[in-house]
């Protein structure tokens, strides 16, 4: 008897747990969690709309406020074209420089162990933690007329501050860690067994890099380059300090937008902004493609 009773009790327990599983599987039947769900989704959508969609719409609306002809005029303006050229020049240079050095630094810090390794890794991150305005000021204090290198540069007639080299230098500085930061964890996780194996077979560094390291990092590298480009194009603070805002000479697109805006030339400011927005959207598409392809 007792045994039978126990068995039926066990069945009850099993039945209960099955019931409770059903409850877990169908949470939607409970009104409370449903409200929370839609509330959270609603909040997120609202946030995205106000923070992302609305500003984009405002840029578009303002850019075309005075009609297509005014838009075309602002975009095709001589100074706008020059600013676009300088932005692209600074971006391409910064990306090229940071890619080369980022790859070197990530390879060095992930595959070799030496004293001061941690300190070097921390140094590379400095541009992330320093305000871009400060970075610009640092360059002025170093390379400007009154700066440490001022006399030397003067002697050889090299202009860095308030000139194109300064703009490029500031852009490089601000975007310095992007490629490194993307590559470093990937290389670290790979370990160095494969490189050691290849070295033991007599492969030189160049061959080891192209045959073993590069295939492993190529997507991360592309991703780093994309992020670096996006940041380089939009850089304002450091470039603003060091450029001197010389129209047609040291103005990048973001600086040009600010000048137009300060001159109450709102339509033109937004028209020029739309170029930057278009570039950003382009980068976003490329980035999504890369992420999709990576999978």
């Amino acid at each position: 008897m007792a045994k039978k009773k126990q068995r039926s009790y066990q069945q009850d327990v099993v039945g209960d747990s099955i019931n409770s599983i059903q409850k877990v599987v169908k949470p939607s039947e409970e009104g409370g969690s449903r409200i929370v769900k839609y509330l959270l989704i609603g909040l997120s959508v609202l946030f995205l709309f106000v923070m992302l969609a609305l500003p984009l719409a405002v840029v578009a609306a303002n850019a075309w406020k005075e009609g297509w002809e005014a838009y075309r005029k602002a975009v095709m303006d001589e100074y706008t074209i020059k600013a676009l050229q300088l932005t692209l020049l600074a971006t391409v240079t910064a990306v090229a420089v940071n890619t080369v050095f980022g790859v070197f630094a990530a390879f060095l810090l992930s595959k070799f162990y030496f004293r001061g390794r941690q300190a070097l890794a921390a140094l590379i991150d400095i541009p992330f933690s320093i305000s871009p305005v400060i970075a610009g000021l640092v360059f002025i204090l170093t390379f400007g007329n009154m700066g440490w290198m001022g006399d030397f540069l003067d002697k050889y007639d090299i202009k860095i501050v308030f000139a194109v080299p300064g703009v490029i230098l500031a852009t490089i500085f601000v975007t310095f860690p992007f490629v490194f930061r993307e590559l470093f964890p990937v290389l670290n996780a790979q370990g160095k067994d494969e490189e050691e194996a290849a070295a033991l077979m007599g492969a030189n560094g160049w061959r080891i890099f192209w045959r073993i390291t590069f295939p492993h990092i190529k997507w991360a590298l592309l991703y780093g380059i994309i992020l670096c480009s996006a940041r380089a194009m939009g850089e304002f603070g450091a470039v603003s300090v060091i450029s001197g805002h010389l129209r047609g000479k040291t103005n990048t697109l973001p600086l040009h937008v600010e000048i137009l805006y300060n001159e109450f030339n709102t339509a033109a400011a937004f028209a020029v902004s739309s170029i930057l927005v278009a570039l950003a959207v382009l980068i976003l598409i490329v980035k999504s493609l890369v992420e999709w392809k990576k999978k």
Partner: protein
Amino acid sequence: MYVEMKDICKTFDGFQASDHVSFGIEKGQMAALLGPSGSGKTTILRMLAGLDRPDSGDIMINGFRVNDLPGNKRGIGFVFQNYALFRYMTVADNIGFGLEVQKKSKAEIKERVEELLELISMEDLGKRYPHQLSGGQKQRVAFARALAPGPGLLLLDEPFAAIDAKVRRELRNWLRDMIGRVGITSIFVTHDQEEAMEVANQVIIINQGKIEQIGTPEEICFHPKTEFVADFIETERFSQGGK
């Protein structure tokens, strides 16, 4: 002696990894470096391979002092603990890499790769990538890759550690037979005394960077020289009996 370590010392940040290590291995022998983890056995292997440098002492291979010779000039093949197969290359490219580096002709590489694939009975898997292989197959590829350039000495770092217990014994026999067939002098590192006793014909027992005893498996088993060796063999046996 084909391989000789003479009074080797090595410290890492104050940690004595090798403490006056000396031993010699005859040509064609299969030696095991046996010891608990942290005893410094892998360090010895890495110094032989040229991956680490000794602080003092001489490393002799085939009658030459190789201390200042880079690893790739020492005529050695190295099988890594986790095989370290090149994951973006096919099995055939993995095996052929050493020959490719030596700038051998394509036909020559192809011939040697096919020969080795046949040796490890993986003729049809040359086009696979490492992640498509089982643990045992990976080890066989790592073995073939190490042999491809025709080294005089084969070094294996815990060759069975990454393989599950069931296949381990089978692979052990396979590797022993294979090395016997190729006739290459080999040294392998292990912390498993059963493995050392079964595969090697010379066992070197290491503890805390020092050599405790060198001898044949029988000598080690029946005539342990130090208390440590007796203890180590005893506890290992005991723990295996317990399983």
